[in-house]
């Protein structure tokens, strides 16, 4: 089935999605007049809609394609991703969401730098935003490239360029208004599509999960036997998909990975940015509830889809070679399942939705990266707050184009990585840089400018260096034999290092600025808790 030429239903459905979303972009472009419109959709998005848009931002290619493929390959381990991705949401709600809304306007740096010296904190925030956004973008580009390869029979390179161009159009002209609507439409399509897939799987098994799991174990056992395992060994391999396996081999990797997933969510700039699109703290809260509900529901569906893929795809002669081994594209289990369940038409629908998913996430990421450059670096650090709204938007738009080019190049360089894993690295960076900075600046009076800049930088750089030295990059991409840093995720080292550095530097900080920083806490706290003095997302 691979390389079988273009799939016309898929192309038609995808073209319809693109045409529709571009029409929305044109409509949004006419409504995008001010800076507040461009960055925060004018602050007028309701909690329910924002919840859907957050879910849209969050249910990325990594979630849909990556996790279902992980389950397809190794079974239960994929669920560890889903759980880690979800449990960050309550923490965001309890500790951050309302405070973010009350303190910030356009970017999370507004909040992180609220009582601190602006240039250093915003410079840090801008760089860490770009680092997280770039890693996240790589994963999405790889997913899109693979999808188009399977689907349209086009080379990987073309696909990556198509995504780059479309995301540029959405963000460039439609800003946050278009991005929000693209997210909402995509979220509804993805949830609908995943629901249908999960139902089609379950209906085969009389809605008995046990029957589904039993069939999956049987299929994996047969595959192991076909690959030459003895009967006992094959049975053992088959049964291994029902429990945590080889993905997190050692305790340090497991805990570190768990930390990155949970706390990374609370440091993702494109997610944090969504809290500035709602009118007040109550709507911010409502949006988290909706988002958590939709995302949790979606992950349960993904789990069924992954096991469904084992049951239907890994047993289908269509996907087996002469020796009885499975041949499918990496990251494409959900797409193959659609083919096995509903033929060409359903394959087309699922592929179009998956592609739409990637486009929407990429648009959200790009917008947050561009805002970090224009609002934090350019307007605040370079122009010292003298920049006009139009000027800021112009810088933002230039950055969008630069980011698109960078994303295309990186997408080509990282073609072979597992996309769910790549996203987990973006989470590790966010958990080690942005999260400690935000949490301590919000909750700890003694925190100072020097503390957050030093601690955030230490956390971010340590996470980055350890990631490069880890097997995923050092061995897989750079081709060395063994990795100096053997663990799956750096967070267990880099996140505490960030907290410790912020604390130590803040405590030792005797500068005059530190006095101002500490004195600013009282007012910051009142505003963060009550919203008194909070900015509507107006432009004045």
């Amino acid at each position, binding site marked *: 089935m691979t390389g079988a030429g273009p799939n016309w239903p898929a192309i038609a459905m995808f073209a319809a999605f693109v045409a529709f979303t571009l029409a929305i972009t044109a409509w949004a472009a006419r409504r995008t007049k001010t800076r507040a419109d461009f960055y925060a959709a004018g602050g007028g998005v309701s909690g329910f809609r924002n919840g859907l848009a957050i879910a849209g931002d969050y249910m990325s290619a990594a979630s849909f394609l990556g996790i279902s493929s992980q389950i397809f390959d190794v079974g*239960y381990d994929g*669920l*560890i991703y*889903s*759980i*880690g991705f*979800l*449990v960050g*949401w*309550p*923490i965001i*709600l*309890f*500790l951050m969401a*309302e405070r973010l809304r009350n303190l910030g306007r356009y970017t999370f740096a507004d909040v992180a730098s609220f009582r601190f010296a602006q240039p250093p904190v915003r410079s840090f925030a801008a760089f860490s935003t770009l680092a997280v956004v770039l890693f996240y973008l790589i994963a999405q580009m790889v997913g899109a490239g693979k999808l188009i390869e399977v689907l349209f029979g086009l080379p990987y390179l073309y696909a990556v360029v198509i995504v780059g161009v479309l995301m540029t159009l959405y963000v460039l002209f439609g800003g946050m208004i278009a991005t929000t609507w693209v997210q909402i439409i995509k979220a509804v399509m993805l949830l609908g599509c995943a629901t249908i897939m999960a139902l089609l799987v379950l209906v085969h098994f009389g809605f008995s*999960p*046990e029957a589904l*799991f*039993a069939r999956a*174990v049987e299929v994996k056992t047969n595959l192991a036997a076909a690959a030459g395992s003895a009967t006992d060994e094959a049975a053992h391999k088959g*049964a*291994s998909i*029902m*429990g*945590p*396996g080889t993905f*997190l081999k*050692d*305790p*340090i990797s*497991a*805990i570190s990975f*768990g930390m990155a997933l*949970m706390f990374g969510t609370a440091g993702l700039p494109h997610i944090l940015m969504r809290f500035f699109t709602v009118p007040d*703290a*109550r709507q911010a*809260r*409502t949006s*988290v*509830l909706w988002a*958590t*509900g939709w995302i*949790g529901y979606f*992950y*349960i569906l993904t*789990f069924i889809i992954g096991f469904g893929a084992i049951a239907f795809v890994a047993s289908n002669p269509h996907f087996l070679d002469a020796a009885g081994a499975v041949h499918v594209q990496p990251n494409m289990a959900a797409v193959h399942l659609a083919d096995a369940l509903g033929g060409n038409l359903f394959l087309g629908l699922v592929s179009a939705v998956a592609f739409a998913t990637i486009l929407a996430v990429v648009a959200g990421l790009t917008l947050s990266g561009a805002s970090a450059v224009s609002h934090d670096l350019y307007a605040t650090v370079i122009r010292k707050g003298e920049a006009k709204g139009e000027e800021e938007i112009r810088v933002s738009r230039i950055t969008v184009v630069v980011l698109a080019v960078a994303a295309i190049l990186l997408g080509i360089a990282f073609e072979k990585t597992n996309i769910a894993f790549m996203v987990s690295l973006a989470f590790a960076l966010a958990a080690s840089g942005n999260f400690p900075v935000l949490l301590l600046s919000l909750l700890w009076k003694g925190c100072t400018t020097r503390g957050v800049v030093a601690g955030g930088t230490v956390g971010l750089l340590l996470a980055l260096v350890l990631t490069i030295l880890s097997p995923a990059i050092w061995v897989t991409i750079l081709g060395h034999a063994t990795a100096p840093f053997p663990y799956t995720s750096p967070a267990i080292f880099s996140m505490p290092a960030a907290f410790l550095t912020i604390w130590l530097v803040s405590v030792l900080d005797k500068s005059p600025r530190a006095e101002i920083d500490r004195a600013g806490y*009282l*007012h910051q706290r*009142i*505003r963060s*808790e*009550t*919203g*008194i*003095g909070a900015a509507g997302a107006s432009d*004045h």
Partner: protein
Amino acid sequence: MAGQEKSDAARYDEVVADPRYQKLLKRRGRFTWALSMVMLVAYFGYVALIAFDKGLLARPIGGGVTSLGIPVGVGLILLAILLTGLYVRRANREFDPLVQALRDGDEE
């Protein structure tokens, strides 16, 4: 803008002195930390099982192939949604009116 800031500063002084503000901080703070701890303990308990005792989660339950890890995993997802719902309910009913009274500067 400057006038706005000044009046905000004056209101901040009033708010700090208001016992309802202290009540809000205490109640909401206690509630959010308690909920956060429930989530953290549940999740890192699960992670600890993956780290130190993979076999337990892989153990079949109910005579079939379904392992203990399945209900535990799905349970964690449901717990996250449930805790979020609990917070939103109490915040809407109890904390919002308190904040509103503070914002309006109502007499007690």
